[in-house]
């Protein structure tokens, strides 16, 4: 018990939680934006891979770190556009299109990487984002190391939480996105474009997802590996529901998941000899389900989620 308490009190634990949470924050915000408009985007896992690959490769090709961020976002947006076209004007199954996009984005990224770098034995490294050592602030007790020694990429994630929250709740565009996810007819009847709003939300959401992937190769690590996304995208799909489609709760959910994960590695080192490591590894997933069961009754779904809308049809 003391051990757990010590861990929970340590700044490095919370710093790790935030670091682990960062890609999830991007992913869950992206998924949230898509779903708020009524489109489930299971392409997320593949878009993560693309973001990781493209962001890394852009930097490797000399476009600079922020060039890489931009490139990843653009690549994510492109796959988002594909998913949006398939599911919005064409109204195809969002499940299948999403899984198809995941398969497509993943295999295209892998194929491109391998064709570009056929004979690497150890993947090339880039100069990745560095922790921003903000003078004075970084030296604050506790908060300093937790918050102010993260990379700019993590700050970008936190900024995005604010931005998405603001856009959704404080701008006409956000209100329209919320409306189109609830009842597309309401938007159509007020002279707004259902397709435009949905496509826009899916494209923007997918760009955010890709940043989650890019964080893995540009901040959490500095090279690209096959399989390194390792299910993080799927986690985000679960977190959105946990977050009940609210950006603030999304941040909380991602942080909680990050904290579980950070605790898991620490506890495993502490009591690893007594309990099978799998118990710890499974803990975040099990706890997510438990949290979901507790929160389920209160989750308010975008009512039009999964339902395509065609102009002039019923």
């Amino acid at each position, binding site marked *: 018990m003391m051990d757990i308490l010590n861990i929970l009190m340590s700044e490095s634990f919370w710093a790790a939680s935030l670091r682990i949470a960062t890609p999830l924050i991007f992913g869950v915000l992206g998924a949230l934006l898509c779903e708020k408009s009524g489109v489930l985007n299971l392409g997320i896992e593949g878009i993560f891979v693309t973001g990781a690959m493209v962001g890394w490769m852009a930097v490797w090709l000399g476009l600079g770190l922020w060039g890489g961020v931009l490139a990843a976002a653009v690549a994510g947006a492109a796959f988002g556009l594909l998913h949006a076209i398939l599911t919005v004007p064409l109204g195809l199954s969002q499940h299948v299109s999403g899984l198809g996009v995941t398969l497509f984005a993943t295999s295209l990224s892998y194929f491109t990487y391998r064709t570009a770098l056929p004979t690497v034995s150890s993947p090339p490294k880039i100069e990745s984002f560095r922790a921003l050592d903000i003078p004075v602030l970084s030296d604050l007790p506790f908060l300093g190391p937790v918050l102010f020694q993260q990379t700019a990429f993590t700050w970008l994630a936190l900024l995005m939480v604010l931005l998405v929250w603001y856009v959704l709740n404080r701008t006409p565009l956000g209100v*329209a996105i919320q409306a189109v*996810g609830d*009842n597309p007819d309401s938007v159509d009847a007020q002279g*707004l474009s259902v397709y435009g709003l949905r496509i826009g939300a899916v494209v923007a959401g997918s760009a955010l997802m890709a940043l989650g992937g890019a964080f893995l190769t540009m901040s959490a690590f500095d090279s690209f590996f096959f399989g390194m996304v390792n299910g993080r995208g799927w986690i985000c799909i679960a977190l959105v529901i946990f977050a009940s489609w609210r950006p603030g709760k999304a941040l909380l959910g991602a942080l909680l998941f990050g904290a579980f994960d950070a605790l898991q590695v620490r506890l495993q080192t502490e009591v690893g000899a007594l309990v099978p490591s799998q118990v710890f590894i499974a803990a975040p997933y099990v706890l997510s389900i438990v949290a979901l069961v507790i929160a389920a009754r209160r989750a308010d779904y975008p009512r039009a989620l999964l339902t395509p809308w065609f102009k*002039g049809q019923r």
Partner: protein
Amino acid sequence: MTDTKVLSLNGLSKRFGSVIANDCVDLELHKGEVLALLGENGAGKTTLMNMLFGHYMPDAGTVEVADEAGQMQALPLGHPQAALAAGIGMVHQHFALAENLSALNNIVLGSERLSLLRRDLKAARAKIERIMQHTGLTVTLDTPVGRLSVGERQRVEILKALYRDVRILVLDEPTAVLTPQEADTLFENIGAMTREGLSVIFISHKLREVLAFSQRIAVLRHGKKVGEIATAEADERIIARMMVGADTPETARQEMTPGAPVLTLQDVSVTGRSKRDSLTGANLTVHAHEILGIAGVSGNGQSALAGLISGLNRPTSGRVTLAAEEVAQVTPTNMIKAGVGRIPEDRHHDGMVGAMSVAENMVIERLSDPEVQSAGFLKKDAITANAEKLTADYDVRGPGVGARARLLSGGNIQKMILARVFEQSPKLILANQPTRGLDMLAASEVARRLLEARAAGAGIVLISEDLDEILGLADRVVVIHDGEMIEAETRDREAIGLMMAGEVTPHEPQQSGAETQ
């Protein structure tokens, strides 16, 4: 009313697959005029208005609208945005509201530029409050629409249109879910606005309000405009002739001696999600050969009562007795087995599985019946034969018994449900808003069938917001208000209306545990 033309529809046509919904329809509207658009279910009224508003793209024809200066301008078709810009507002037959947003947001939606980074809701709120004051259409602006009653939602729909400063207002069955009082208030307010220059087209199946509030009537039949008439020269007979080409049969209710009780509720309470759909200590008896009318403004416990009789809601306390036998467990299956026929309020939502065939929907309530299945496998031929017989007997018209039920029109869906219910010779029938949205012919058909069932010995619980309908059919009237039921000793419209508003109570309303549960 002036003679200034504000709108002209020229030769609008629209077909859906093989259905010709509108066939070269011409229509004109003048400044300050209230034009009623009538026609049977499926005649093409909504389609015509949807083309005007840009939801549907016409196959042929044009629309012209007067601009601010009164010049007729061609309206770009297929764009609601263009219609809104031209000063046309539309209140849709089926609500087009985002339930997760407040009324305020629903009203303002689309009127702000999407690229704005900030919203100025103060001005919007002030403007809406002005409109509400002016028209008497009040709603709570900050509650999510999902939590508003149907009546309130209808008001939001109308406010949406008025907020845009429309010069032409289209109302598609705006009163289908309003009480007669609410409807009257609405039309009085609209009348006031037409005197300030608003022009209105409204669609309704309720001839009473058409005759009272319109100046001109246009009638569609099978997609064609079959005539126009000044309201002053019209009466119910003439209109009915124009609509269906024949007289509507009169439904005459004969007095009957009630038989033994078929349903008794003793101190029954039902706890719903809110007070709106709860029932407190209800006592009720329905006899054979009797129609019991439940009058009340919607959202006063009708859904809880209907849910109870359908078997969807379990009572939290009290006894439910059907034909002298207490119902041990209230479930849909048990109620069906005990001989309760249910006509649900929302036929699309609860009454049918739209994606399944008409034939399948006809047997959906008796899947364990050996006529329908043997050893767990469906008797397809018997099911088809049953459906063919019923569609013939009950005049259910549509693309055939093998077609998806969704393809039937609203009136025919209702007939399909009636066939399913009456064919089982139920002892008790729950008829919840059975004629809502139906045209005169279809409505009178429903009434005739209900009376027939009563004559055959069924007890009927008729829930309706249409007081005229209740007074026309019911042997006894019970008023439901705030989850409590009081028998009306009178048949006076005024007095019952006051009871519906909760202004006459025999005893103080008790605070029940229903809300805190």
